[in-house]
């Protein structure tokens, strides 16, 4: 991988982040609904002076281009501003909420791989069999089902009917481990707190199943088609004619070569899992970044929305970059 390519990608990344920032900034400013009005809602005896003072405090009295300049210069200095509502640094809010989203996305990805990869391999090896058709049928259901509805079905079965798993939040009061990384599973392992670990895992199961199920359908479909392509190659016939066991041919020879399209999907998936968990976070009252941004959009909390969107976009673009770099590691023929 050449340095030139990396520099080019980095400049591209900055371009995208500027574009998304600009888009978010403009769309929030042209939107109906004044944050000052919304903040003063329900307050008694509001004078014009109060409104003016608050508008000035929030910097909303300045012309559009000055607001934009202030915002960009703030980003360069690493200042994302104060939340209008929570009266806290936006960066602190993101730091607090992001580990929850990350934990959910990683666990969901893990589940989608654990389910999707074996299913994809079995469907390819048993191509055109009844099992293959059944798997493909279930796959179609998986990609056609809204994740939030699947989440509700899971809640109905595991929480309402069986009563074995919780439906809300990341843990229960008094069961949070000592905060080190913010990721509850890691923190409870680091502090050797088994009760906190079990509680955190129990809370994670349903949201990550709901989030990961659709992706496991996508993964198994992609893996099935790339495995089918690889299994018809000459070197697989050679491997078989050498008398190698079926499992060795499939897992060592075919799977390795069928993995490249999977990496693309996994990368895009990681990005959209982080973006897509907004709705799952809402269903399970998961205190992540997604629910923070959704709440902030309704409340017109500009700094939180802007920072949240930029943060998401940055993660999304960075993951894509990592995927491209990973290609070269998996397939030495690819050179940028």
């Amino acid at each position, binding site marked *: 991988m050449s340095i030139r390519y990396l520099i080019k990608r980095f400049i591209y990344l900055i371009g995208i982040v500027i574009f998304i920032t600009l888009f978010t900034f403009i769309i929030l400013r042209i939107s109906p609904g004044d944050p000052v009005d919304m903040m003063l809602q329900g307050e008694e005896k509001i004078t014009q002076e109060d409104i003016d003072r608050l508008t000035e405090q929030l910097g909303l009295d300045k012309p559009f281009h000055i607001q934009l300049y202030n915002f960009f210069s703030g980003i360069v200095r690493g200042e994302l501003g104060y939340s209008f509502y929570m009266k806290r640094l936006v960066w602190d809010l993101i730091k607090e909420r992001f580990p929850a989203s990350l934990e959910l996305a990683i666990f969901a990805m893990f589940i989608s791989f654990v389910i999707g990869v074996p299913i994809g391999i079995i469907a390819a090896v048993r191509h055109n069999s009844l099992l293959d058709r059944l798997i493909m049928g279930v796959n179609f259901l998986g990609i056609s089902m809204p994740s939030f509805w699947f989440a509700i079905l899971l809640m*109905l079965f595991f929480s309402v009917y069986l009563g074995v798993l919780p439906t809300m939040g990341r843990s229960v009061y008094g069961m949070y481990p000592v905060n080190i990384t913010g990721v509850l599973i890691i923190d409870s392992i680091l502090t050797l707190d088994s009760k906190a670990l079990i509680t955190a895992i129990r809370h994670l199961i349903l949201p990550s199943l709901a989030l990961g199920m659709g992706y496991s359908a996508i993964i198994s479909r992609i893996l099935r088609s790339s495995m089918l392509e690889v299994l018809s190659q000459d070197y697989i016939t050679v491997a078989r004619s050498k008398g190698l066991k079926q499992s060795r041919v499939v897992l060592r020879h075919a799977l390795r070569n069928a993995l490249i399209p999977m990496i693309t999907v996994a990368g895009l998936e990681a990005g959209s899992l982080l973006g897509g968990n907004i709705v799952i976070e809402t269903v399970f009252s998961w205190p992540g970044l997604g629910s923070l941004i959704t709440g902030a959009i309704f409340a017109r909390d500009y700094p939180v929305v802007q920072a949240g969107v930029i943060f998401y976009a940055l993660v999304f673009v960075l993951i894509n970059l990592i995927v491209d770099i990973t290609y070269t590691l998996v397939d030495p023929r690819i050179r940028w």
Partner: protein
Amino acid sequence: MKKNFLRLLRNPTAAFGLSVLLLVFFIAIFAPVLTPHDPIRGDLMVRLRPGFWSPLSEPGYPLGTDMLGRDILTRVLYGARVSLAVGFGAVFFSLLVGGSLGLCAGFFRGRFDDYISRFVDWLMAFPLLLFLILVMGVLGPGTWNLVFALTLKGWVPFFRLVRGEVLSEREKPYVEAAWAIGRNSGSIMFQEILPNITHTLVVLATLRMGIVILMEATLSFLGLGVSPHIPAWGSMIAAGRGYMQVAWWLPVFPGLGILFTVLSLNLLGEGLRDILDPRLRK
């Protein structure tokens, strides 16, 4: 055309998809005739009644009633209208915008293509759901707002597909022949190239409609879809969520509506791809 249609009917997945989709269409169009109940006004005397599976069910309410005593079946039938209308509207406008821009970018190339392709790359980096939540949060709920928001990013896949197809088509001998006999660029674009790429557009439009309906349902679920008084599957699930401990049927049936509609579109799209795209024909 007739040959392709017969081929479609012989393809079991596509035929199944088409039948279910036609059924959903029928339901959406004839909802007022199919049910005697009002989708908005309910009867509080029969609130939260289960459906046919329970001895406690109320006659005339086969799928039960919601917290305001409204018939679930009626609301599910009416919900099909919103999903199909928004799905069609958004895909139509996305196709129009993305198709025209893609046709021009692929045909004329040059600076126009560079600028628009760069813009598309940037737009692609914006996670779809986040983008939609942001735009709908700003615009507020409403059917047209929803169509607009879904089109705002929905044209991108059409642009990319059409541009790519046009780039390869314009180098083919039939286009060269059209130039040679003195046809102008407009007639080559619309009368020669466009008919040759229509089949891929049909496949993409069908598959995109499934995605659009899922997005519409998600936004309605979050309270950012159509106006709250219009029965939509997503908002019905959201409202029913609070009652699922006592009335599981509230969120389950509208979800089945979404599932069957999107499934039928996906199956039809896959079937159409097999039939219309000769490269994939077995």
